[in-house]
């Protein structure tokens, strides 16, 4: 009886090992199952998801107009002070003072890409961009000014 148990134990063990080896062998002889993506080579075909949060961007249209009113809702929503909105007062045609965006400062190096600022924006002026290649040699270049020079707020955005 002891011998029988001893041998069946060995047989079972061998079988379990062989099952595992068959699985790895299965993948070894099928190069098509390889899942490696060769990143810098596949940049042209690499498409990130639409909602992928890579960085905060402020879209400008063809006339260099954006939709930011300078309300600082994003600045308040940000958990770690990544955004600084600097506002100025502009004169409207009716000669009234109106708050407007001067500079939209964005510290990418502090950003956790949580998306709360985009969620908070009432006018849809900022969005999440798909770019994820942010490595730079100089950290100070990560502090960005999002509104383009000379850009203005789009008509009708309140």
């Amino acid at each position, binding site marked *: 009886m002891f011998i029988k148990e001893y041998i069946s134990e060995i047989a*079972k*063990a061998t079988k*379990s*090992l062989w*099952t*595992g080896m*068959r*699985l*790895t062998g299965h993948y070894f002889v099928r190069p098509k199952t390889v*899942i490696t993506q060769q990143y810098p080579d596949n940049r042209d075909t690499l498409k*990130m*998801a*639409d*909602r*992928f*949060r890579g960085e905060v961007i402020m879209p400008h249209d063809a006339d260099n107009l954006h939709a930011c009113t300078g309300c600082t809702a994003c600045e308040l*929503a*940000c*958990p770690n002070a990544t955004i600084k909105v600097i506002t100025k007062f502009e004169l409207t045609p009716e000669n009234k003072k109106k708050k407007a965006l001067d500079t939209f400062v964005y510290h990418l190096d502090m950003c*956790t*890409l*949580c*998306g*709360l600022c985009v*969620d908070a924006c009432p006018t849809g002026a900022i969005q*999440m961009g798909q770019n994820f290649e942010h490595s730079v040699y100089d950290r100070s270049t990560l502090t960005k000014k999002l509104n383009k020079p000379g850009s203005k707020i789009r008509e009708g955005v309140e």
Partner: protein
Amino acid sequence: MYTETQIINNSNDELVINVGPQHPATHGVLHLVITLQGETIKKVEPHLGYIHRSIEKMCESLTYRQFICASSRMDYLSAHINNHACALTVEKGAQIEVPQRAQYIRVIMDELTRIASHELWWGAMAMDLGAFTPFFYAFREREVITEIMEETCGARLTMNYMVPGGVMTDIHPDFQKRVKEFIQLFKSKIDEYDDLVTNNIIFQNRTKGVGHLSKEDAISYGCTGAVARASGVSCDIRKLYPYDIYDKVTFNEILETAGDSFARYMIRMGEMRESIKIIEQLIDNIPEGDYQAKTKAVLKLPKGDFYTRVETARGELGVYIVSEGAATPYRIKFRSPGFSNLSALDQMARGGKIGDLMATMGTLDLVIPDIDR
């Protein structure tokens, strides 16, 4: 801490080894001081704090919307579930009614996160025991989940998808289709996992009877999740104190009585299958409607304290908010599952070999930022 003279003057042939903070098996910056006699472990003493960021203090200066994204950084492998717990606590305090659709989405996301977390654990645990290949197989399937997450939530690991009152955006149009595809894929692959690791005789010998934790100890140490359930303690928060729509789905709480590493392993493997079951029940029945409740611009919780318990991939996460009526919490305490589970490590590893310590640590599924917070 041990000084050099203490080690040298140790008369009873004991060897003190620092495992970590940088060590292949500690998966992060856990520091264990183990006392050995030969290969046998006499004592394990964890030293924490290498990745302590004081999230609790940080949250005291964040609003109720903002602090959720900080909680992703605790147990980053079940970030969704952490966010869920925080959102639930805020909703409980501010008495926000969450739309049905949001609840369905949340639970599906939770379960996907749980599978993703267990996949990573499975690979890492096999790696702790010296098998490298499972890690890649696990990541192959995990990648599918992260891509689904990326498509809907916009991020792969720290999604910050839950907001008080629902979810941040509606699900992606392809979401249901891709989740169903994943379920089909996963069902065939999980059998491969069994072939490769579970049934392997070496693996079974390495884990069976190793790192034993009795039921009494599991309760006394406050263990939760798979660690406690492997010792026969029924503690699945989803079953005991259902939140969102967990009371509407049928699933089993996997229980084992052996209390060893293999039992913990089997629990997690079973949980993956149960999670698939839950997703299958929900994925076709997501009701139409709002994905987010209308909430005030500035959320304020009434004076008082609020406690929420949810079941993360590692065990019970408790979020305890003490509010003074302001827009920021007065005090937040995260009761993390890993912290309590780790405290039982000494009990489990004592008397075993060094290899057993790795097997035990692997099945505890420690995520160090979760322990240190």
